[in-house]
């Protein structure tokens, strides 16, 4: 009885969540006449699969894909590494100025990007990084506050006794981080990886500001170029959006399973 109720609630909710995706998909495969019909066409008369191919070859999307992959992979590695280190530092040590520094870290999440943009651009320009992928990758090696905060909260749910026991056995801080906490926070790391992947994959502003040459563009920048100042190529936007959703979705499907099966946590604790 409860189960039936739960399932129908879930089904109803997921119908609401799936509508946008469905709508994007059918928009991508409609022909131009059906695009503007009302009442809306819920299933196109003829599915125009070729719209995907057409959209993909309207711009050098293979080049954009390569750039996006480079950015996403390299920055995700950096983020995972640096954030787990920093989060461990904040969660497991008492040191002078810790709380003040932590507040400082939190506060960096609160600065609106509008005003950081120009000074940051100047800095990257001085470094000669404009029109390279570096501004999109290198900062990821210096720990994003959001993820540090997330991981720190996660680590703090792990009983301190585990650390103490390890220390008794002669482990040093690095070993505690590397051998005990890194495996323990795997679900949270997968989460951070997924989030960062999504952010980097969908980032529009960064590439827009820092990249000039089309050969350096990322996928989202290519996507946005279907939207001119006056006219919008709706079919191509929808088609590329659908394509762009696929890698993160696959990744997510496996990630969530991993997060859920990551029962390593309880086994160590027990």
């Amino acid at each position: 009885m409860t189960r039936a109720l739960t399932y129908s609630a879930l089904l109803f909710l997921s119908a609401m969540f799936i509508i946008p995706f469905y709508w994007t998909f059918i928009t991508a495969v409609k022909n131009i006449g059906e695009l503007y019909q009302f009442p809306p066409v819920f299933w196109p008369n003829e599915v125009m699969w070729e719209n995907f191919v057409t959209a993909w070859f309207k711009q050098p999307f293979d080049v954009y894909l390569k750039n996006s992959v480079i950015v996403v992979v390299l920055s995700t590695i950096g983020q995972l590494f640096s954030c787990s280190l920093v989060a461990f530092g904040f969660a497991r040590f008492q040191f002078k100025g810790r709380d003040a520094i932590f507040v400082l870290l939190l506060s960096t999440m609160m600065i609106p990007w509008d005003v950081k943009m120009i000074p940051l651009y100047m800095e990257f320009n001085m470094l000669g990084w404009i029109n390279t992928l570096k501004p999109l990758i290198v900062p990821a090696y210096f720990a994003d506050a959001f993820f540090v905060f997330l991981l720190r909260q996660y680590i703090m749910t792990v009983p301190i006794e585990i650390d103490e026991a390890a220390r008794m056995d002669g482990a040093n801080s690095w070993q505690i981080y590397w051998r005990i906490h890194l495996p323990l926070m795997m679900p949270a790391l997968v989460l951070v990886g997924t989030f960062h992947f999504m952010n980097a994959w969908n980032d529009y502003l960064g590439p827009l500001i820092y990249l000039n040459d089309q050969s350096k563009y990322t996928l989202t920048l290519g996507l946005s170029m279907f939207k001119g100042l006056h006219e919008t190529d709706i079919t191509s936007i929808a088609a590329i959006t659908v394509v762009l959703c696929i890698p993160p979705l696959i990744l997510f499907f496996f990630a969530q399973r991993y997060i859920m099966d990551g029962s390593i946590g309880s086994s160590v604790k027990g």
Partner: protein
Amino acid sequence: MKKHLKQLAMVTAVASMALGGASAVSAEEVLRFATWNSSENLGILQEISKRFEADNPGVKVQVESYGDGYDKKLIAAFGAGNPPDVMYMWNYPKYHSSLMPLDELMARDAEEMDLEDIPAGLINITRVEGKAYGIPAGFTTHVVYYNKDMFAAAGVAEPVAGWTWADLRAKAAKFRDKASKTYGFAVEAKPDPYDYEQFFWSNGTRFIAEDGSTVDGYMNSPEAVEVLTMFAEMAKNEEATVLGIGDNTSGSALFKGSKLAMFQSAMWSKGGIDKAGINYGVAMLPAFGDKPVHSSIGASAMSIAKATKNPELAWKFVKFFASPEAVKLRENDLPIRTSVAEEMELTSDPIFQPFFEMLALSDRESNAFLKHKNWGKIQTNLERAIEATMIEKGNAKKHLDSAVARSKRHLK
């Protein structure tokens, strides 16, 4: 632990080296050219750039396209002192101090460029304090598109030259159909400011005094109130749908879906309508009674950054862009050269002719944004008044007065 940090540093270093390769210096001279064009229009620009490269060995034109993120990109680039060499420009009052004045170069090469062939009005749009900062690349005037099939089906006579808003309203009323959600015309509640400015002009008033000193008596003049009241009435009587109030459905989308019999727009809508396969005609803007009709001119022009390292090359490229050869390639814009327009028989083409007729009528006024440096903020107040009038479908006088009052602060 130190060892691991070292490893981390190594990874970073290796990664940045791998990426560094991308910025390798080449022997070519690179000219950066930024545009807001996208899709097909961008392809045309790339073609022009290629031809320029062919004529100028050792030069590479890097075409940078930013779509509707153009303004943001330009602000970051100019703000940080790293602008492109050549760029599309429209907002001269904001940027002119960082752009190269072109009058001397134009005077020097007037003959070679055959400047006589380019309507003076198009160059005047780029002037700030008397100096020209751009060479026109393309332009558009505003017109009314109408759906010929819908007119035929409804048995309504198509618009003729010299028509008035009263004519348009009478025609529009005949298309309204609740069941199929069809309308005769569309009124913008969140307009591109140019749209209303041309209506103000056509009704014999302005947004702001000629010398930019005041908006009182202009923005809220009886003529201005009349314009807004007319559009509000059209909305009230359902002669027109209202665009932009809680609805991103554009006039061109409705027109392409045959939900709209007429809509006011410019050259940039033409490509999409062609593609949608609508059988359409183009008419001039209607007049307010017997007052002379007037259109805004939307022009894109090419400007050169003051900071460019290679002004001669940049100028050469701009000249090439305005040459008959390049102008002919840019078929999605109206040609800036009279000779090209005539050669392509556009001035007698029924679709294109109204655009040129509007141009001939439209060199009497200049846009408000050229007249006051705080215009952006004043305009926000005006936009609010237009929106409020359309939502309430009336009370134009009250809202315009309030816009004038709110703007006092910015006119100091």
